[in-house]
């Protein structure tokens, strides 16, 4: 039994170290730290989305820190952001959400953004009863039948008809073409809702070209040639800003000179930088117009620009609203008990009860499903490459 001669002193030693350490361990603070989880796409196929989301949230945290903490019921609480990368993979998003809830003990989660990760993460949040708000996920199923899950953006079935109505009223066109990414959730959903709305107005067959490609494709000439040959009067392009410049460029090279209309995924200064004059004069539907913005919106844009050297995109703006909705909900609770289950429930209830939240992307009230009712604006990209307010479209 010679080994006990080694093991026993080892045990004693480590116990002594443990006790010594516990002696100098920091004493528990009087107030709990409020933790907000951020479940974002830092790697994977849409890293820019995750980066913008993280940046906006960090800017918010700076504000809170500058104010010396988040004031709830007269007490100032320290706030911590716990950032997890979900790698744009459903299983990783679920794992990240579980970790944030059970391990990091966050009070609420902001993100994920893309629907393919927001749906599984929403399932986890709903099961483990932690409020979650997705800034950017447009799939109805993210929030459907999930009382704990909210979102800050509007849904495809709202935006599709908005664009259809706008184009009809504005230009009086009757023949539409759509080009979208069939492998991606958001463009496909929007394209289909647009098609449905357009055909409701102009009769079946009025969408003369309904063409698609696959994520990461860089050549759209086959589809564009078909679109040009179809005699469409305009092109609806519910795409992200890394494809839009390429599509615009190739369309021009192939001789397409009709108007192009986009969706809220266009709402990034990157688009203008990448597409240059090609996108001038285009319209798109979105949450807010950066150029000529006033009040809080302008302040947010200016600060973001100063801090990160770029105009915030839609994800950044929606994340900003999301974290502020969470903040408003926590404040409305009025008291942090320190018991997570109670606090989470209180925050969720407060979030569901929010009325007319004045966000930078519009005024929001949540429906039963946790989807915001908010208005859309039509923005025109002017000759200086700025997003100019053009028209206001309110929800029906």
């Amino acid at each position, binding site marked *: 039994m010679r080994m006990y001669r080694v093991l026993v002193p080892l045990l004693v030693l480590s116990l002594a170290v443990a006790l010594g350490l516990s002696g100098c361990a920091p004493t528990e603070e009087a107030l709990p730290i409020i933790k907000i989880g951020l479940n974002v796409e830092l790697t994977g*196929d849409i890293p820019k989305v995750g980066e913008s989301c993280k940046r906006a949230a960090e800017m918010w945290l700076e504000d809170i820190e500058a104010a010396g903490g988040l004031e709830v019921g007269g007490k100032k609480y320290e706030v911590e952001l716990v950032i997890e990368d979900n790698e744009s993979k459903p299983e990783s998003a679920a794992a990240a959400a579980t970790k944030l809830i059970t391990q990091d003990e966050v009070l609420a989660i902001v993100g994920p953004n893309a629907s393919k990760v927001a749906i599984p993460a929403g399932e986890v949040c709903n099961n483990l009863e932690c409020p979650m708000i997705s800034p950017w996920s447009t799939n109805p199923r993210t929030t459907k039948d999930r009382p704990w899950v909210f979102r800050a953006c509007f849904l495809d079935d709202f935006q599709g008809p908005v664009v259809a109505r706008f184009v009809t009223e504005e230009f009086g066109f009757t023949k539409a073409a759509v080009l979208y990414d069939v492998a991606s959730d958001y463009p496909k959903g929007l394209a289909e809702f647009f098609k449905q709305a357009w055909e409701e107005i102009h009769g079946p067959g009025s969408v003369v070209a309904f063409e698609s490609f696959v994520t990461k494709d860089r050549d759209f000439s086959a589809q564009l040639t078909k679109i040009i040959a179809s005699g469409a009067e305009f092109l609806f392009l519910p795409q992200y800003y890394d494809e839009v*410049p390429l599509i615009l*460029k190739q369309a021009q*090279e192939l001789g397409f000179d009709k108007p192009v209309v986009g969706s809220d995924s266009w709402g990034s200064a*990157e688009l203008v930088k990448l597409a240059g004059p090609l996108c001038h004069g285009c319209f798109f539907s979105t949450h807010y117009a950066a150029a000529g913005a006033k009040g809080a919106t302008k302040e947010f844009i200016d600060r973001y620009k100063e801090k990160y050297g770029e105009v915030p995109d839609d994800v950044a703006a929606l994340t900003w609203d999301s974290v502020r909705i969470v903040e408003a909900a926590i404040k409305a609770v009025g008291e942090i008990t320190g018991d997570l289950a109670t606090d989470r429930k209180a925050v969720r209830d407060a979030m569901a009860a929010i009325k007319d939240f004045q966000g930078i992307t519009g005024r929001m009230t949540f429906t039963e499903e946790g989807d915001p009712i908010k208005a859309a604006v039509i923005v025109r990209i002017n000759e200086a490459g700025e997003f100019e307010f053009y028209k206001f479209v309110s929800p029906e």
Partner: protein
Amino acid sequence: MTYLLQHVVNALQWGSFYALIALGYSMVYSVLMLFNFAHGDIFMVGAYIGLFVSTGLLLLGTAGAVTLPNWLVLVLTIILGMALTAVVGMLVERVGYRPLRKAPRASAALTGLMIGITFQTLNLALLGAKRRSFPALIETATYQVAGVSITNTKIMIVVISLLLMLALDQFVRRTKWGMAMRAMAVDIFVVPLMGVPINTMAALTFALGSALAAVAGIFFGQAYPVLEPYMGALLGWKAFVAAILGGRGSVLGAALAGFMLGFIEIFVAVVFPSTLRDLIAYSAILLILTFRPYGLFGEPYSARLRL
């Protein structure tokens, strides 16, 4: 008719990218018999190097030091880009492939894949997730020939990829180095006995393949000026398809298969609903290889496969 012709022109241009990338891929593949799964990401690195070189050179102009004409910037970008990317390629060979030369080939494929992922994420971590726009060095001009729109970039890319294809084919077939490379393809263990410095040759092969990737990357930047860290990933897999569809040991075949892949992808989208494109295009490739299990232009090797 013009409608169809327009599609042919489109397919030629798109195919020329697959051809250019497959060319570099097949360089390594047909000489060293290695799956170079890092190739797509070397292509990405090449495009980024091209971006930084050309932006730098253009900045020189705006800073008032020396104003270079655009064509000169393009030429310098290509030369510098090729050189720098070749260095990257040699590094990849040294780190990821040389230690594994005697290992199962698939293991080397995995190191390639992992190096590729490292490049992607390193780019993401260092340069941020922002997309970058490649400066337009060629003033785009659109010509209308019999109702078909052709741009000068399209012509240039097709011509350059054809030229490179021929040049490479001549190099592999006519020069002494090319001969050594072909010999290595046949038997990598005997060739050193004939006095061929195998390490130098392997590095050279990688350098050449990577330089080709850089050319592809720079022209890709001209035609599709949005760069992002993952741009090479899918293209790399597709180049793998093209290089092997062409056939083992056939550089020319690889390039032709690249064009073919472009044609298949575009014409499937033309004839069928474009949502079914991948489904039909890759089913076709699956079938082609089922009935021609040695690729389109490859010789049926009886040599034992080292896998």
